């Protein structure tokens, strides 16, 4: 990989946009198994689910859409049991379903992450140079993330992309909270180490 003089900021990272909360009416309708309301729910959360699954499995994974569909179908089935007044946010609940499906898929098929080749530039990167650097950084992140054990990668994505707390990650991964903390720490440490030689990480 070619070295590029660019830092990977470690403070105040940008979190993935959290889908705007759906109103109680739509959630109530989803709980009542109303497919039309559920469509609104899918539209609101599909980007988030694809983001998690593609980063877990590689954006070129052939069954990405199947897994995303399965995530929502499971959510639909489970909606009557989802308690909107409980502690779990609906987005966290959905990410939990997607994470478990992704981990199962990795275990079952020994999927290798597919390198991201056609990543698009973010709008903020307006010059060709910045876009190239951004793409290279993205490739490096994808490669480093692909080298992580599945559970560590899941912890990293849930925390640093989707903003879940360690308690929520622990619940999603069905492990004690300290284990979730450890996995997250190890994941960040390995990511920094993997990028350190070629990218100036602090």
């Amino acid at each position, binding site marked *: 990989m070619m070295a590029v003089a660019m830092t990977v900021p470690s403070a105040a990272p940008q979190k993935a946009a959290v889908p*705007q*909360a759906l109103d109680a*009416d739509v959630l109530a309708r989803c709980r*009542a198994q109303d497919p039309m309301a*559920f469509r609104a729910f899918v539209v609101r959360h599909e980007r988030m689910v694809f*983001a998690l699954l593609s980063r877990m499995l590689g*954006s070129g994974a052939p069954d990405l*859409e199947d897994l995303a569909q399965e995530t929502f179908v499971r959510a639909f089935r489970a909606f009557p049991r989802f308690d909107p007044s409980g502690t779990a946010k609906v987005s966290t609940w959905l990410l939990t379903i997607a994470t478990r499906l992704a981990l199962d898929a990795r275990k079952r098929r020994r999927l290798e992450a597919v390198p991201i080749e056609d990543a698009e530039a973010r709008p903020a990167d307006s010059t060709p140079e910045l876009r190239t650097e951004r793409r290279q950084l993205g490739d490096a992140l994808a490669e480093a993330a692909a080298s992580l054990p599945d559970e560590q990668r899941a912890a990293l994505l849930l925390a*640093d992309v989707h903003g879940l707390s360690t308690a929520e990650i622990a619940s999603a991964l069905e492990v004690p909270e300290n284990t979730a903390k450890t996995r997250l720490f190890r994941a960040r440490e390995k990511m920094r180490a993997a990028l350190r030689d070629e990218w100036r990480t602090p």
Partner: protein
Amino acid sequence: MSDEREDFEPGAEQPLDLSAFEAAAPPPGFADRVVAKVRAEQRPAPKRTRWVAAGAGIAAAAAALVLLRARGAPSIGETVAEERTDVAIGTRAKAVLEPGAKVQWHGDDVVQSRGDVFYRVEPGATFRVHTPAGEVDVRGTCFAVKVRGEEMQKRDVKAGAIGAAISTLAFVAVYEGKVGVSYANDSLVLSAGESAKLGGGKVERSGTPAEGERAFASAAEQSADDVPLAKANENLAAQVSEYKKRLELVATKKSELEAELAKAEAKLAGAQDGAVPRTRSEYDLDQSDWAELAKQGQVKFRVPCLMKGGWTPNASQLDKLGLAPGDAQTMKEAYERSYQRVWKEIRPMCQTALGSSADAVDKIGPQSCMHLVYDIASTTDPEAAAEAHTAAAEIRAGLRPMPGPNERVHPVTKMFLVLTGELPQFEADLAKSLGPEEAHRIAFSDTICRSDDRWGGGKKREPEKRP
């Protein structure tokens, strides 16, 4: 395993910025594929105890929907939901009505008089929802409308809205796409994730759907506690004054009608030796009712649900109907025979209208065929179709003779004669097992599966004897 040790304290560990880590975006149509999948998994929906749909029904074949859309079929209907009810409105909208909600529609024009309705509209020409408090225009989106307060009584929406807008609140929340909401000259455009409140002659943004709904619930509660006119905003004084005048006119008219009614009742009581006048279902029509409908260019009828395998009431419905468990089979068989009678007549008409094979018509089914027959006749010769429409009402009113079996009759007239004549046959069929009184009671009960339809669009004219 060292990575799994639990004595680690994260301390000052900082999160990473992974924003450059690209992710795949959802492919187009993903949400629709998910919804198709969950729909396929759902068990068949329970039969509605009340369904009224002059438009293409939920069960209509996709082929029929395509035909209806291609021909721009008029679709007219009305539904009052007694339980959560799915309704297909025209060819490109679906609505879920909560109990108590009421909608009437004519093509892409919907009047939502009361209650909560969630709409999904496929892209196309403007689809409009009229509420007493204002109007909602959409071109393809997913949104909810809630109406509280005075119900809009008139089919003439604009006239009805003048008074009702003062005391009625409506709430619109948009989940996909964009919609325009308006009342008089006040209007705004809402995008997905936004909501608005309509009422008191104003249209106001109310934040996200969740925020808006909370504010709306509070305002609706307040409104319910208020006397609408006394609490009306001062700026609406002129409208309130007009409203009062209208009420006075209505009160005068009501007094006149009450006097006429008292006279008629006295006359009837004398004629029947003191018998109490019969309370009839609005679909239990006599010749004077038909004469009035003919005057308005309308045809109105109740038809038992047209289901090939018949409709079998469940235990709760049998209980409501006051029938014994053994009567379920009687009902089922009566429905089967009703379907066969109607389909035997409508099927060849549909085949002729479409120029299609019998197989194709069978796939479309009676409900959609009715609309196709009407639509094709209206498209071919609107004047003749409107004439034929009213002719059916005039025949039922006794103003025209019933056509003979070999007489050439316009398909619209023939179709309406079939539909308006089916309930008496169904009732007579039930009477063989249940007796005439029970059969009559069951036929006009609101618990049975049926379609209550009113078709406008005929020629309006004063009733008179015609050859």
